[in-house]
Structure formats: structure tokens, C-alpha cells
């Protein structure tokens, strides 16, 4: 009987378990779960703070998932080392787990850059896990002044989640705009304005010179007084386990389309990996839930001796703040087609007969048609781009493609 070990218990691990079980009903699966929770929907932690969901509804799978899948879960257990020669994982508590196939689904950890005086702050918060959200819930009330360092996806979702619970929120970022990893200056400006309407204050192009207890002195000279400090500067892939045994690691664990690492018998999936972004052909960490699920499943199928590949990864995000939806995908390179109205911006980026990427703020209808074109590398010459750029519609495809797509007498 094959022995499978999965380090991590996020959605990549859930995908891996399901992938294994789609091939092998018998093998022994052991999951090392650092968090003491069953797999849950991590991106929902801000919705929890908003009161739009609760831990029960945040479950990614039914309560009987692990039983049904015949898995043993070691809660609160961290992997310390891998011994690739003897194919064993050693947990921090000394437990040794032999494996035939190992999957690293270790996720990422908040990155805290050195900042002067940070040790004078009695308590700091991250915003990555359910426990982080529960801690923030417990530490805030209607009188709290919250200071969030980082105006990326995590920082801003945290701000939105806390908005109705606290007295004031200030967000700072070294970048001169919000969501700098996915938005250009103009789109970021729209989003910022929208967030400001809800009372969130921004200090952009600015950083902390020094923390002194409940006060942050900014490089610009501004002073922020706060009760609760959230550090959302960025994350780093958890690659240590593979790095220390000499496996190939860049910004994340290097994997191929079968989710194999450079070390035989070891696969990896999710936020801890880097893989090819097919919209630009470079290797990147694509830390988004859909990729984690699909990579996990791919790894699982292959670990169990099946055949699966996931080789069409692109960055993509659908994120909303107070009703304003932002969708982005791919790479912003080449020629830009732009359409603007009072409350919306559409930007499509095309190069070499392909759609490479887009930014859609406030105009999300049928965006998946654009996303599919990036993922499938659809030649623009095969579609009516004049129709398509104005409106995402399958009508822009030829009758023949449409017939195939909808499998009808179209």
C-alpha cells in the first residue's frame, strides 16, 4: 500500500487528497496541518470580519471530508525536515512519517521587513489565516484606530473587513498607489477614491521611519496614532523544507507541469511554488486559490501514478471593495485598448495576435471570455476583435468556433 504525506492543509492539500483518491482508493494519506482547523477558504477571512460568513460556512469541504477520503490529519504538527534518502518526513515533535510520495503544500508566510522600533509595539497582527482574523476580531472595537502597513490585496481586504468594526483605518504603502502589483496608477486611483469614500485614509509613497509604541512616525513627517497595527507588507513562499535538501527553489519551489519538484518522490502545489505564467512565459509565484486547487489536484493524480498536467497558469484576480469589482488577468504588455466611463475602466493588452492581459474596474460582465482567450492563447485573427474589445461576447468568435464551443447546431 502506497504511503502519501502532505505537508500543509490548505486548499492545495485538499486538491491533492482528491487527486490521489481519484486514482488510488487504498493508499495511506497523512496530512500535517500546522493550523488546528480543517481546510477552510482562506480568502474569506475578510468576509468573516465583515460578518458575511462564519467559520462553519468557511469550510472548504464538508466536516466528514477527511474521513470520507480516508486521511489521517495531524493537527498542530509542523514538518521539520525531509530525509530524501530514506523518504521520511520528520515532524517538529519528533514523529517520523515514511512516504512513497510527498507533497509540499506549505503555503506562504507574511514577510516583515526590518522596521525601526517595531519591538516597541506590544502586539502586531498579520492577515493570512483564520486565527489572524479571530485575533483581530478580539483586539478591535468601535473605538479602535487601526494602522495597516501595506496597500496590497491583503492589506486592503483587511481594511474593508475591519471598516464597520473600528473607529478609523489608515493604510500606508511604499508604492505610490494601492494594489500596485495588479493595477496601474489610474485604476488604482479609482479604487483608492472608492475606499476613501468609506473613510479609509491613505499614506502612499510613504513608509514608517520609526514605531514608538502606539505611534508611527512616517518618512513624510506624518504621524499615525493607532491601537492596532497590521503588517501586510507581503508574503514569502515557504520553501525551506526543500531548500535545505538541495531542491531547486527560486522565489518559490520550482515545479513542472506535473507539479514535480527537482527531488524525486516530492511534489509541490499552491502558494509555496513558482511555475510558468503562460501569459508572459516567465516563472513566477502565482499565489491564488484557483492555481492552488488545480496544482494540488494535479500533484495528487501524479503521486498516485495517474497522468495529469496543469500547464496553463496565469495570474488572475477578481476582487471587490464595497461593491466596486476589479478583475485583472495576465500580463500588461503590448498595445492597449481602453474604454472609460464615469465609474469604469477597461484595459485590454494585445501583442503578437494574442490577448495578453486585462484590467477591468467596474465592468466585469462575461470577463471569463477574455480570460479564456489569454489562457488558450486564442489568435486574435480568429475572432472579431472589434466586437470583442467593446463587449466580452462569444458572438465575436466565428460560427464554427461557436458551434464547437456550444456543441450545438449554432
Amino acid at each position, binding site marked *: 500500500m502506497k504511503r502519501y504525506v502532505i505537508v500543509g492543509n490548505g486548499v492545495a492539500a485538499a486538491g491533492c487528497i482528491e487527486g490521489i483518491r481519484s486514482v488510488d482508493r487504498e493508499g495511506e494519506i497523512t496530512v500535517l496541518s500546522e493550523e488546528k482547523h480543517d481546510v477552510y477558504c482562506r480568502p*474569506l477571512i475578510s468576509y468573516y470580519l465583515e460578518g458575511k460568513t462564519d467559520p462553519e460556512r468557511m469550510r472548504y469541504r464538508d466536516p466528514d471530508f477527511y474521513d470520507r477520503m480516508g486521511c489521517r490529519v495531524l493537527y498542530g504538527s509542523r514538518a521539520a525536515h525531509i530525509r530524501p534518502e530514506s523518504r521520511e518526513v520528520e515532524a517538529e515533535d519528533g514523529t517520523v512519517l515514511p512516504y512513497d510520495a510527498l507533497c509540499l503544500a506549505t503555503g506562504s508566510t507574511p514577510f516583515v521587513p526590518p522596521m525601526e522600533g517595531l519591538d516597541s509595539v506590544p502586539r502586531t497582527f498579520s492577515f493570512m489565516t483564520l486565527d489572524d482574523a479571530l485575533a483581530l476580531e478580539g483586539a478591535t472595537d468601535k473605538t479602535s484606530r487601526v494602522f495597516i502597513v501595506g496597500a496590497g490585496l491583503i492589506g486592503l481586504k483587511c481594511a474593508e473587513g475591519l471598516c464597520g468594526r473600528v473607529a478609523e483605518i489608515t493604510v500606508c504603502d511604499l508604492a505610490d498607489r494601492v494594489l500596485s502589483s495588479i493595477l496601474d496608477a489610474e485604476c488604482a486611483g479609482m479604487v483608492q477614491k472608492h475606499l476613501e469614500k468609506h473613510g479609509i485614509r491613505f499614506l502612499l509613497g510613504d513608509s514608517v521611519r520609526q514605531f514608538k509604541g502606539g505611534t508611527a512616525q512616517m518618512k513624510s513627517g506624518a504621524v499615525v496614532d493607532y491601537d492596532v497595527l497590521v503588517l501586510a507588507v507581503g508574503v514569502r513562499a515557504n520553501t525551506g523544507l526543500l531548500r535545505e535538501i538541495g531542491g531547486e527553489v527560486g522565489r518559490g519551489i520550482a515545479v513542472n507541469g506535473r507539479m514535480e519538484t527537482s527531488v524525486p518522490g516530492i511534489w509541490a502545489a499552491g502558494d509555496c511554488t513558482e511555475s510558468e505564467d503562460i501569459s508572459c512565459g516567465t516563472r513566477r509565484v502565482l499565489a491564488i486559490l484557483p492555481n492552488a486547487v*488545480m496544482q494540488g489536484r494535479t500533484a495528487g493524480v501524479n503521486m498516485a501514478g495517474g497522468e495529469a498536467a496543469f500547464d496553463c497558469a496565469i495570474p488572475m484576480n477578481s476582487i471587490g471593495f464595497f461593491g466596486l469589482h476589479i478583475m485583472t488577468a495576465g500580463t500588461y504588455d503590448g498595445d492597449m485598448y481602453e474604454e472609460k466611463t464615469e465609474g469604469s475602466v477597461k484595459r485590454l493588452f494585445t501583442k503578437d495576435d494574442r490577448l495578453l492581459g486585462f484590467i477591468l474596474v467596474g465592468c*466585469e460582465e462575461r470577463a*471569463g471570455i477574455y480570460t*479564456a482567450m489569454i489562457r*488558450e492563447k486564442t489568435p486574435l485573427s480568429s475572432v472579431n476583435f472589434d466586437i470583442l474589445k467593446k463587449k466580452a461576447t*462569444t458572438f465575436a468568435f466565428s460560427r464554427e468556433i461557436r458551434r464547437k464551443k*456550444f456543441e*450545438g447546431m449554432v
Partner: protein
Amino acid sequence: MRGNERMKRVYVNEPWCLGCHLCEYNCAFANSGLSDMVLALKGKPIYPRIHVEGDDKITYAVSCRHCEDPLCVKCCIAGALSREDGVIRVDRSRCVGCLTCVLVCPYGALAPGADGVMQKCELCLQNACGKPACVTGCPNRAIVYEERGEAE
């Protein structure tokens, strides 16, 4: 493997579609939970789970294809979408309205309801109709409910 699963789906015969949009109204009515069409729809914006695309000459209706390997289900950040017995369903109590499914559906078949929460074609199996209202009400029988294998 695609196309190996036998199940009934909603298909549209494009040359027969008149572009009358009745399917949209029948869909909205069937899913309204009301028994009076006038009460359900009159003077209100409708949020149907099927919509007509095309121009003034060619039209066709688009609704969920109930893919065998559905991207929307895999990409849902809330675990709200699932595929059971070939039908892709949304658990509206879990959906947080992030629209990731809209971002990934290659058919452009998904859109949220009036409350911003996702709703989708579930083939009218859960409502009072019991079979797709868009099909039953199509005046030119352009929309059909039958087994054909699966779309690409």
C-alpha cells in the same frame, strides 16, 4: 475525457433563435418563487440565468454548460459551487459575491443576482418548473433539452 458523460443539457439551435428574449423572462419567472408572472416581473429589472447574445441578424441564448471539468467550481474561493449528478449548483449561503466564477467561465454564462450573490442555471430542477423553463417557453423551439455529449 470529455463528451463521455450522458446527461441532458440545454442547447440552442442558432438558426431558429428569434432573439425574442422570452427565455430570459421565463427563466426569471421560474426562479422567482412566485406563481404570478406579472407580480414577479412587471416593472422590475430581471436577472435571468440565460441571456441572448448576437446582433440584429444572428442571435442565440447562452446558459451554463454544466461542464464536466468546470473551472468555476475549481476556482470558487468560497467552496460555494459544486457539481452533483452532472449539475453545477451554487450554495448561495456560502457565496460572498467575489465573482471569480465570472472571471473564469469561458462561456460568459454566469452573472450575479440583484443582491450581488451568484445565481446560475440549475436546469430548473430545484424550482417549481422541474424542467428548464427556457426550453418549455421557447416559441420557436430553438432551445432544447437533450443529450448530446459535451461542449468543448
